[in-house]
């Protein structure tokens, strides 16, 4: 028996998921104390989303 997994994520959902998972990995790898890790994860996630949305808007004039 084989189970097939399938996801249909929107662009925003995919970006959020990617940013969250990578931020958590970076936070755990680069910081030792729990508080520092949380701060790093939140800051990294914020920058991922800010830059992602920013690049999206920067490309908007050329999208059509």
């Amino acid at each position, binding site marked *: 028996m*084989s189970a*097939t*997994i*399938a*996801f*249909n*994520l929107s*662009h925003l959902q*995919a970006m959020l*998921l*990617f940013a969250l*998972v*990578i931020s*958590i*990995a970076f936070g*755990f*790898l680069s910081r*030792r104390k729990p508080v520092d890790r949380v701060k790093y994860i939140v800051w990294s996630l914020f920058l991922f989303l800010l830059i992602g949305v920013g690049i999206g808007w920067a490309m908007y004039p050329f999208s059509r």
Partner: protein
Amino acid sequence: MTDETAAPEAPPVDSKREVFALAIAVAGWIVPGLGHALLKMWGRAVACLLTVGLLVFFGAGMRGNIFTSGGNDAFDTLGYLADLGAGSFFFLAKSLETSGPDVSRADGDYGTRFLAAAGVLNLLAALHAYEAARGRKA
């Protein structure tokens, strides 16, 4: 008179420690998080296992492209190397993706990036475990 321009003598390399660090790196590459687990860095081990696992799970579920060794160009080869970085999870992704890749949709394209990111992230984690085993960082 001594030669003042001569470089200072390098400290002796502890070969046992180097071999141990290499073994840790290989273990961390084959099973994400195992390198840190062997060093008793439990939080990092679980984080590596879960994050690489999640990226592979979602990447395969979104029907991302899993590159093979018979690529046509340099990008295929780079993609294959990135995918291989996930170690045993590369084969897990292959077994999960029973329907094959579908990059005609944005989902499939994102899935390809997720799988490549999982591999590169695992390589980064293995390198971190290697450095930690050598005592350079913790």
